[in-house]
């Protein structure tokens, strides 16, 4: 069985502090894979390593069996960072057009895709508005749109739904399911329990270690919990 993302024996330090310890993760093609863990447990660090913008101190990251960082693999994922990375002076359209061009999408393709992704995040009305006039949640959604612009086969989302209301969150998840139907692999970090529940598999993180990886159902069964929240509390340390 080949995995689309593989992290082997990853350890990492920032200065002298050990941030990640011996992480091994394998993510299957077409699944929704969640990273759940308390703040500061290393979720962002892990997803940055998957994208290749952070090189692990020890260990290796593979995308499609190719060692990261690799420019070829960078075309294949879409990344939405935890903090919005957008050009404030430019309009949504200009931002998306810029990111689209980086992936060598043709002009007509970009035009078409901009409509599609803006539709997806329900921002079509604000297409020609400068980003600096966007609300926090709108910026979040635009970041998501920018991650999807080039129809990537892997989507890496770092807390995508922070600051987004439940109705919209619901519709974004609808879209993610739709993408999954089309064979897209989705990797998502989250704090939100009902979101964790929606993942096919979950990795529970604590203090830079992966404590458990399994489907939400199995995780619950394993410790006799009825909700993911209990699982989180159990593994997150509060129950010990």
């Amino acid at each position, binding site marked *: 069985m080949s995995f689309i993302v593989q992290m082997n024996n990853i350890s990492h330090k920032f200065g002298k502090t050990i941030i990640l310890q011996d992480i091994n993760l394998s993510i299957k093609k077409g699944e929704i894979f969640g990273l759940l863990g308390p703040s500061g447990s290393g979720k962002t660090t892990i997803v940055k390593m998957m994208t*290749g913008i952070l090189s692990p101190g020890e260990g290796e990251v593979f995308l499609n069996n190719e060692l990261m960082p690799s420019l070829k693999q960078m075309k294949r994922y879409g990344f939405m960072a935890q903090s919005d990375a957008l050009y404030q002076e430019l309009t949504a359209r200009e931002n998306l057009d810029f990111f689209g061009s*980086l992936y060598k999408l043709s002009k007509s393709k970009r035009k078409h895709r901009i409509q599609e992704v803006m539709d997806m995040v329900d921002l079509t009305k604000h297409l020609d508005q400068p980003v600096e006039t966007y609300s926090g949640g709108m910026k979040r959604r635009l970041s998501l749109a920018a991650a999807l612009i080039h129809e990537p086969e892997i989507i890496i989302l770092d807390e995508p739904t922070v600051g987004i209301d439940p109705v919209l969150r619901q519709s974004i998840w609808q879209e993610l399911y739709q993408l999954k139907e089309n064979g897209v692999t989705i990797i998502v970090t989250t704090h939100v329990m009902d979101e964790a529940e929606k993942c096919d598999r979950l990795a529970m993180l604590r203090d830079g270690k992966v404590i458990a990886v399994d489907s939400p159902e199995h995780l619950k069964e394993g410790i006799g919990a009825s909700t993911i929240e209990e699982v989180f509390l159990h593994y997150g340390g509060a129950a010990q």
Partner: protein
Amino acid sequence: MNTWTLMKRILKQFRRDKRSMALMVAAPIFVLTLMWLVLDGDSKTLNVALVDVPDPFQETLEESELQLTSMSLAKAEEEIDDGSIDAFLQWKEQKPYLILEGSDPNTAGAIRNELQAAAAPNDPTKEMNVSFWHGSEDMELFDYIGPVLIGFFVFFFVFIVGGVSFLRERTQGTLERLLASPIKRSEVVFGYLGGFGLFTILQSILIAVFSIYVLDVYMTGSLMYVLLITFLLALTALSLGTLLSAFAKNEFQMIQFIPLVIVPQVFFSGLFPIEGLAVWLQAIGRVMPLTYGAEALRGIMLRDEGIAEFQLSMYILIGFVVLFTLLNIFALKRHRRL
């Protein structure tokens, strides 16, 4: 290809960011003008005595704004001593000798400019011998100032705007976002240099043309050469600014580089004479881009030098640009190994 995409984006951002536009265009002009108003005492009448000057040349001088009086050598020497004339022009063995009072550098420079302008057609002042009644240091100081100021303002403003923009790219997370796409590190750097470079060409033209034609800075050389050097100087400032922004955490720290990086360059670039300094002190000036930019500009503007004469400074500036650009590409390794 990605370089071009990045350049287009930067130009678009410029169009939106009116403040930076204004900073890069209006600010140098405003400051240069102020500086010139302070340094250039235009309203003063300049008294020049003529000693044995042949009639034809005297006629051409009538059109200048100098206050001319013919007198004997003895009288002229007496008057220049008590300061009632600013200079005298003497004809000896078919050649003009200009003796400047010299205690006020502005006056000295202005007289030289005036004579140069008035005598332009057949131009005997080209070989005019200039000397000073009271030493010559001050004259050099004045001559240095115009070209150095042009170089300095180009350097200063490009450094700030380029450095801060690149820094902002990092702090707002878009640099990371860029590097999480299939763009090469070199494309990021070239895109930045290209985008700002285009704008910088305009800015260099503006500052140089304004100084030379509006403020009437002393200039005998070729405008194309002046533009070439100011542009190279701007590229140096841009690549140095983006490089140093890697070592700043925020805009405030970027601004702190000004006293560290910009101000010392002013001391060593010729605004102040450094010939008398210790060798090791002079050596400091040798590693500063502005030194070479100012040297080349002085050569072109004051002595009408051609490429053959200022090429060394030019190559050194190009060397700085290449060096800083490579270091920029290398510095991005911190963000992505590839």
